[in-house]
């Protein structure tokens, strides 16, 4: 493989090398030292077994390989979608192995080569996958040291490793490299259980800032995303879509499309597609199809959805209960009742879903832009009635995921069309299809009843969320009498909903942090002091303290007219606290976010630069759901079709962003999601501080801001 070549390009060029069975793994990859999963589940020891669904087989589930030229390959079912693990995982491996970071090659998201993985989501790569991987590296290093001891006839204790070369201490000319040791060998090592990787103090590469390792191929336009794969004879497919979710095809006429030169029409029941070797021709052919539908008319739209959800008779489950609600009421000198609303939000990644599939002798290979290569493999096998081992999914670079590329419908469509036509087929959705099949962040309602005593201590917290999801619903505050209930029901949403960057937590943190602010204001206490007073978790407290110190926070009682808001929360193992400064135009309701500060504690931070970039991304993306993003619809008919009506943050929105990461030598935690959860709450609180207007609904559109200001005066 050439230095600059992405793995996807490599496999694409060397298709004859692709093994049809994982048994051929070694034939493809070659000799060297491998470290495998042991029988059983190594994730168990890290309390992360829930991340794995399939039992791992022990014959080819390698974490890493050290090749004869000393190159280290990291094999992972995880994928890169901008979150930066293509940079941070090699940092970890290099540190554990004592090799330069640029000697580590990533092989990601290939179901034939990588150990099974349920998918890349939930900020789990660092929290969960990295532990057994680092353990594998530590194990490999130990094996190599032992081999070197034999070769150099020196006890291990007398050896040291630098840049993949093992030396005898004080006799630096006596040495052997990793590559020399593994030459001509096929050494298989199986992980045993006890973790013995390095201590934080020993890290040389981890904890240092690194630029994106894939940046060069990305700035040259060479990185291959789903729609960039080209196979000989490939056809582009355009698929007939219903006008709304729940509509049923009643009649269709494809005769006009069939007349077009070079068009291939596929019609299997209500699955109708046109294929052509030029994508624009396929689109034109699709326009020529006449189709009639019967509709399942639901009246609900983005305005009535909250009542619709509450009326749907959802089932409530108490997820946490402490003390007694009645006692809490009695102990409170004032009770606050609020209801918060949050609309549907799209993932709206710049890259729409895309996949290419090809079939040769009952064996499918699919290149898919997906967060879930292994589940995609399962879906394709099921759709085509093939055994799992006949399907290979190779993840391409993913042009943004945020949870939206966990579903992989496009991969199944491509495989199905490849199987029907016998040709390689590309299915690349257009923007309208992307909005139509997106699994939106669900619209949700949160009801809170809370109370404080005369001293400003929270005595009561009764929290009910409807359809938001439980993540982040648990209060972070120390309240003696509290209850958290989650309500949901199946089949109520008029279209697909699913995980969206920090699922549940954006809605829950917006509601909770707004309510806290309402109480602080009423109690006449500075919002930072009020939080410090009512928090108990030392890690949460440390983050709020850091915010107070680093921003030079001056006590205020909201609304102060300053336009400063604060919010804090917990997600994916990490603690965050945000401060925002806004300017509100009281004539137009326009909110300009001027400055956002974020303090984050995420355990040991593997790549501080990468973590900072993720925080900046979270803050920027979070302004969108807070202020403008709202999917419009009537029943299953998605009215939002493109970026003219779906407004995501642009350059003119960008505030001054400051980040502060707290140092902590604890296991590394998630970094891709936590900093987004506060954005609704912190902006709502800042608007309140600026104007006295309290927003109970996201997005906080200009109309809603004006309405809130009006109510306050």
């Amino acid at each position, binding site marked *: 493989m050439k230095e600059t070549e992405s793995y996807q390009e490599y496999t694409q060029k060397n298709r004859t090398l692709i093994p049809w069975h994982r048994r051929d793994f070694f034939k493809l990859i070659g000799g060297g030292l491998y470290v495998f999963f042991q029988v059983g589940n190594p994730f168990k020891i890290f309390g992360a077994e829930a991340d794995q669904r399939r039992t791992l087989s022990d014959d080819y589930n390698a974490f890493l390989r050290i090749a004869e030229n000393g190159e280290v390959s990291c094999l992972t079912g995880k994928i890169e979608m*901008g979150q930066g693990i293509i940079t941070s995982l090699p940092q970890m491996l290099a540190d554990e192995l004592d090799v330069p970071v640029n000697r580590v090659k990533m092989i990601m998201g290939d179901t034939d080569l990588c150990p099974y993985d349920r998918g890349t989501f939930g900020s789990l790569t660092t929290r969960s996958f990295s532990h057994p991987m680092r353990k594998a590296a530590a194990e490999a290093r130990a094996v190599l040291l032992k081999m070197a001891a034999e070769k150099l006839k020196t006890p291990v204790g007398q050896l040291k490793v630098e840049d993949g070369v093992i030396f005898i201490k004080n006799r630096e000319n006596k040495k052997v490299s990793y590559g020399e040791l593994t030459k001509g060998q096929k050494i298989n090592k199986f992980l045993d259980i006890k973790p013995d990787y390095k201590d934080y103090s020993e890290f040389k590469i981890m904890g240092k800032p690194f630029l994106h390792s894939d940046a060069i191929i990305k700035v*040259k*336009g060479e990185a291959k995303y789903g729609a960039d794969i080209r196979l000989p004879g490939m056809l582009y497919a355009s698929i007939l879509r219903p006008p709304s979710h729940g509509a049923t095809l009643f009649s269709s006429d494809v005769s006009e499309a069939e007349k077009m030169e070079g068009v291939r029409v596929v019609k299997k029941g209500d699955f109708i597609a046109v294929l052509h070797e030029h994508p624009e021709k396929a689109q034109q052919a699709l326009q020529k199809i006449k189709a009639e539908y019967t509709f399942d008319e639901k009246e609900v739209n983005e305005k009535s959805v909250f009542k619709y959800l509450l009326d749907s008779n959802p089932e409530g489950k108490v997820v946490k209960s402490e003390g007694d609600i009645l006692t809490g009421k009695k102990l409170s000198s004032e009770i606050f009742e609020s209801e918060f609303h949050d609309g549907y939000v799209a993932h709206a990644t*710049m890259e*729409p879903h895309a996949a290419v599939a090809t079939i040769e002798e009952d064996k499918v290979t699919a290149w898919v832009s997906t967060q879930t290569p292994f589940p995609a493999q399962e879906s394709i096998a099921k759709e085509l009635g093939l055994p799992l081992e006949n399907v290979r999914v190779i993840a391409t670079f993913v042009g943004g995921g945020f949870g939206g590329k966990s579903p992989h419908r496009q991969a199944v469509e491509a495989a199905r069309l490849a199987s029907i036509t016998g040709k390689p087929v590309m299915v690349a959705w257009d*923007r309208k299809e992307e909005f139509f099949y997106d699994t939106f962040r669900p619209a949700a309602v949160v009801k809170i009843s809370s109370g404080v005593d005369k001293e400003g201590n929270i005595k009561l917290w009764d929290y009910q969320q409807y359809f938001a999801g439980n993540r982040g619903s648990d209060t972070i505050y120390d309240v003696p009498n509290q209850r958290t209930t989650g309500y949901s029901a199946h089949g109520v949403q008029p279209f697909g909903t699913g995980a969206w960057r920090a699922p549940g937590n954006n809605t829950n943190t917006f509601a909770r942090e707004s309510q806290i602010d309402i109480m602080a204001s009423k109690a006449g206490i500075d919002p930072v002091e009020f939080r410090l007073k009512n928090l108990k978790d030392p890690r949460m407290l440390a983050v709020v303290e850091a915010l107070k110190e680093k921003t030079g926070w001056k006590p205020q009682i909201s609304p102060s007219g300053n336009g400063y808001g604060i919010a804090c929360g917990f997600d994916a193992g990490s603690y965050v606290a945000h401060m925002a400064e806004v300017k509100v135009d009281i004539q137009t309701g326009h909110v300009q976010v001027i400055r956002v500060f974020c303090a984050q504690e995420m355990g040991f931070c593997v790549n501080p630069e990468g973590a900072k970039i993720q925080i900046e991304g979270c803050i920027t993306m979070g302004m969108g759901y807070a202020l403008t993003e709202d999917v419009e619809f009537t029943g299953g008919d998605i009215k939002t079709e493109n970026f003219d009506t779906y407004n995501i943050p642009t350059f003119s929105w960008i505030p001054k962003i400051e980040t502060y990461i707290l140092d902590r030598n604890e296991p590394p935690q998630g970094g891709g999601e936590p900093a987004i959860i506060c954005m609704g709450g912190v902006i709502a609180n800042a608007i309140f501080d600026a104007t006295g207007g309290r927003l109970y609904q996201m997005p906080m559109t200009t109309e809603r801001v004006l309405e809130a200001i009006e109510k306050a005066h």
Partner: protein
Amino acid sequence: MEEKIKFELNGKQVEVKLEKNQTLLWVLRTQFNLTGTKYGCGDGYCGVCTVLMDNDAVRSCGIYMEDVGGTKIVTIEGLAKNGELHPVQKAFVENDALQCGYCTPGMIMNVVGLLKSNPEPTRQDIIDGMEDNLCRCGAHTRIIDAVESASKEMKAIPQQ
């Protein structure tokens, strides 16, 4: 009706036979296999399809081939010279101005176009000039920094 259309693509004269109503975006991506130019919205809203046409940054999804004849087109693949990254590409790498990278080629082409017409943009000029290029990952702050450093670099070493 197919026609012959001649234009300059990344410094080379090319000639293609195609229908005049085909768009530049798809011709680049399929006929020429230049997949660095991306599709994002197909309607002029996102800018991930941006290329240079006679030194102006344009959205290739809205350019019909009949208007391409006789012009000079530069795509992201044509920016680097003799294996050397263009200063704007370099500035994106050095400022870590990308995450997923999908918007990146369009961003870079738009910056190159911007700096050709305004070599020393103010911060506000940059914001205005980049406003309609969308990035979902939120790389904006670093993109602004990258444009500033590229502009300085290009001033020091005048380009073609």
